[in-house]
């Protein structure tokens, strides 16, 4: 077991975070030297790779440090790997896009790394304070990244909307933490669990209302209805690689914290299952229905990300080990194919004036049969068709739910994926079946984005066909937990 009281200041526990921070520093320092500015993506990449290696290295290492503020376990390590992978993919697809849009500033890469570090902080702690700080470290760069394209009114708007809503949500989260603290005198999740008899016995209402507001705060990050309304606007307005990052990174981090808090930490609150039941059902339904009538693919994908958050929320209603591992599996799966889909959009948008409207895709397949097939495959994965990992993820998630008797929730989920087929297929319909409306300007590839596509493609298909490995990992990650 982990020694939770360890006061040791063991920087090895923070290896990945430090690597990211160091690379961010380096970028900031070198960034102001014109000739070295070009190096910043490389530096960021190296930092991320080192972080990845360090995170992988932490697998199996379970210890605690910094007065219990840092808890290193497999759950956290697994998520750290996910975060770094997402960041690497984002980095790879962002570089050329940013250059194309004249946004290629060294700071972007620094912010990306800092934000990733924030996610790690979130995943790597059992203390509410640290989680809150991690959330802020993750979010602040995101607000900035969303508003990076300063000349674009949409980007500005995305930034400010994200910021306002994010700060608003943070206030609730903070209030929630305050109430929990008021109830227990601690912000450490482990003590909240061990002392829960006392806490519930004496300060039930404080605790419960605090938990409710914490749920609001993190629910906001993952885009649970009714705290989702920022998502479409921000996703649409932000630069596309950033959107790609938004749609998986913070979401994964939010879910990591939510899983820690609600499946394991506050699991003794009996009410949670029902609450998440409703939240899940509401989230996926609203996400899917609103996605039906979108004209912009990015916006559609935004709603779809709400819907997918809804699917993952099923795991919270279900609770238990298999649900957590299913949620983790689904997150990885979602990260893969969603990033892939965005990578295609990034490619599209490197053409001047393209905003990823549906109509701009018409006849896409005539010119780019392979790229459009890849896009189609990602859409199928989003629908949850076999043999993509999208299917297996849903399958595993739903099977965990059914085993705990949540048949109706699964039925709702299944009906929702049915609805989602319509709008995902619309992408395929437009790109394959429609006649090109005007001459389609060909996209130009860069090696980096090809790598992204290959990785996501291989992951989408490979994990769909042979999910056993990832399944094992996601199952073993939860054993060392809390």
């Amino acid at each position, binding site marked *: 077991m982990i020694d939770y009281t360890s006061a040791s200041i063991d920087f090895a526990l923070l290896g990945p975070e430090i690597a990211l921070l160091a690379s961010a520093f380096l970028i900031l320092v070198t960034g102001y030297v014109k000739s070295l500015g070009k190096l910043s993506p490389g530096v960021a990449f190296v930092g991320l790779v080192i972080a990845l290696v360090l995170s992988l290295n932490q697998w199996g290492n379970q210890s605690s440090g910094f007065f219990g503020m840092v808890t290193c376990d497999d759950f956290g390590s697994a998520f750290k790997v996910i975060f770094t992978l997402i960041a690497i993919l984002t980095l790879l697809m962002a570089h050329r896009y940013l250059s194309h849009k004249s946004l290629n500033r060294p700071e972007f890469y620094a912010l990306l790394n800092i934000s990733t570090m924030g996610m790690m902080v979130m995943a790597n702690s059992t203390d509410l304070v640290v989680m809150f700080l991690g959330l802020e470290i993750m979010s602040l760069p995101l607000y900035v990244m969303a508003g990076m394209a300063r000349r674009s009114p949409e980007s500005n708007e995305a930034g400010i909307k994200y910021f*306002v809503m994010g700060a608003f949500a943070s206030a609730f989260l903070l209030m929630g933490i305050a109430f929990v603290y008021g109830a227990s005198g601690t912000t450490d999740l482990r003590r909240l669990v061990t002392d829960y008899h006392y806490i519930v016995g004496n300060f039930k209402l404080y605790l*419960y209302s605090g938990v409710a*507001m914490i749920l609001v705060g993190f629910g906001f990050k993952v885009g649970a209805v*009714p705290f989702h309304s920022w998502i479409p606007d921000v996703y649409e307005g932000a630069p596309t690689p950033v959107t790609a990052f938004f749609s998986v990174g913070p979401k994964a981090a939010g879910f990591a914290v939510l899983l820690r808090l609600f499946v394991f930490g506050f699991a003794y609150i009996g009410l949670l299952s029902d609450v998440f039941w409703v939240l899940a059902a509401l989230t996926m339904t*609203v996400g899917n*229905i*609103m996605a039906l009538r979108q004209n912009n693919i990015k916006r559609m994908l935004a709603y779809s990300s709400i819907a997918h958050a809804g699917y993952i929320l099923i795991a919270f209603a279900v609770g238990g080990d298999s649900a957590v591992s299913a949620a983790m599996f689904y997150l990885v799966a979602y990260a893969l194919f969603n990033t892939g889909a965005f990578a295609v959009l990034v490619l599209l948008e490197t053409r001047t004036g393209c905003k990823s409207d549906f109509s701009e895709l018409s006849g896409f397949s005539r010119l780019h049969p392979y790229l459009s097939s890849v896009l189609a495959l990602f859409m199928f994965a989003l629908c949850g068709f076999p043999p993509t990992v999208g299917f297996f993820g849903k399958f595993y998630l739903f099977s965990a739910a059914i085993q705990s008797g949540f048949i109706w929730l699964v039925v709702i989920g299944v009906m929702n994926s049915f609805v989602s087929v319509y709008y995902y297929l619309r992408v395929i319909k437009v790109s394959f079946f429609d006649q090109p409306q005007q001459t389609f300007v060909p996209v130009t590839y860069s090696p980096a984005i090809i790598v992204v596509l290959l990785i996501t493609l291989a992951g989408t298909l490979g994990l769909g066909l042979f999910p056993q490995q990832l399944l094992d990992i996601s199952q073993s990650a939860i054993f060392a937990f809390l």
Partner: protein
Amino acid sequence: MTEYLYLIPILPLVGFLINGLLIGRIPRPVITLIGCGSVALSLALSLSLFFELKALPADSRMIEQVLFTWIVSGNFHVSMGFLLDPLSAVMILVVTGVGFLIHVYSVGYMHKDPGYGRYFTYLNLFTFSMLTLVLADNFLLMFVGWEGVGLCSYLLIGFWYHKKSAADAGKKAFIVNRIGDFGFLIGMFIVFWQVGSLNFVDINAMAPAAFIAGGSLITITCLLLFVGATGKSAQIPLFVWLPDAMEGPTPVSALIHAATMVTAGVYMIVRSNVLYMMSPDALFVVAVVGALTAIFAATIGLAQNDIKRVLAYSTVSQLGYMFLACGVAAFTAGIFHLMTHAFFKALLFLASGSVLHAMSDEKDIRKMGGLKKYIPITYWTFLIGTLAITGIPGLSGFFSKDEILWKAFSSDYGHPVFWVLGFVTAGLTAFYMFRLVYLTFHGPERMDDETKSHLHESPKSMTVPLIILAALAIAGGWVGMPHILGATNYFEHWLEPVMASGRNAVDTHALMSTSSNAGMEWSLMVASVGLVLISIFVARMFYNKKPELATAWQKKMSGLHKLLLNKYYIDEIYGAVIVRPTVYFSLFLWKVVDVVLIDGLINGVAVVYNDLSESLRQVQTGRVRTYATWFAVGVVVLIAVFMRG
């Protein structure tokens, strides 16, 4: 020789395959050779097998040959097997004999037709199917032939497919037959599930135990089978297709729609006489339908002006006789009439074909007249056929018809009313047949000059079959002379083994009480002959001596005439009651149920979803403060929920 039994149907099949696959690639003489030759071989084989069968003792005259298992599924087992017994022997002789003659006739009749090869292909296929039908050793194989002849009938009626009427008639024939087959099928199911086999031999042996004689199940079974028979043999209410079938080439009408195929229903009932004997109720229905059809069709025949249609209605009427015979359990009489009818009706049709040949395909008898001197052979053979059908003593028709009338009167299952109906029908038949003869061959020449200039006797290939058939029409009945004339009824003896099993099925002394009342039989015979003669005389009055009398009567009873001319409007009634409502109902199903209801529901769901999406989207106003409001509402609700918990 018996091991070659299967060759009888197979030979025409081979002919069909050769002609069919090589269609358009082989010259006409070869087609002729293959077409006629295959049937000729079948005929020869049939004759030799017939004699072989005859050589056997009476109670072992049954040869069964199983080729291979056709369908097997659990205890359902049906083989491709042929059964030669006295009954099927008669039938194959009729089929191959008449069939061969008609093949030969066709050589001349069709020689100018571009579809010569196709014609013989179909004809051979028909012969194959018909032989399968009569030789089958089980109901299902019989059904194969049954449907096969239906198909050939369809193809041959629609032979001149470019004529819409021909194509329509073919389709009508097929569909009406299908309605009959429906009954046949269901009947077969009952038989199988009761008896456990469809093999005739098995059924004959086991049916008495499997069914309760006189019970409702056997009655239903027999009636269902009879529905099949009414379809194939053009009985009320499914007779409507046969007159239309005259759209086909005349030899086809002779072969299929007079001599062989249409009698399949009779054959089937006789074949399953064991079943029918167990159900007096079913027999009664058969008799009633037969008698009614006989008189009903005869009345229509009175007013028709198309030479072939008159013959067609007469066929329907004669088939009614046969069913009447079956219905009074005089199966032998039915088969006997079937055989004689095959001779004289084939003769009549072929002769009428010869007339058409001469008349450049003009079918309306009102435009004929006085043909006697142009086409004498045709005239005489036609006259012989007419005399045979009207039942002039000494000719084949007399013996068979008289036996039926007598049985209708005297059999245990008979009734004087049946006799009266048959008697009147005989008079009507004589009248319309002689009307036909007089209008066609006697009196003034009413055809136009163009036609007149082309009048000529038919070639040898057509006249020779006519002459042979005429001979058969005269002599064909002598094998079945009634006892009261002091002769031996060979025909009855020959079929006795087949009928015995039926009689044994029910404990009855029926049928044998006939000879006890010779005086009655004589007087009835005289009465019918008298009526026939009177009818002939009246016809002569109306259509030869005083044509104005006919027109006067026609005017006087114009309503009735119109009714008869239009065949009681049966087609129109069917059209209005069945066909059109079905079409409208179908349109309703398609346009309303499918498109509006089901698709409407589904598209409606899609529309609802779309609208829902569209209106939900409005929530997403783009204003942060609205979002924050929703957010706050969410918070309020969530906290409220947690407060309760």
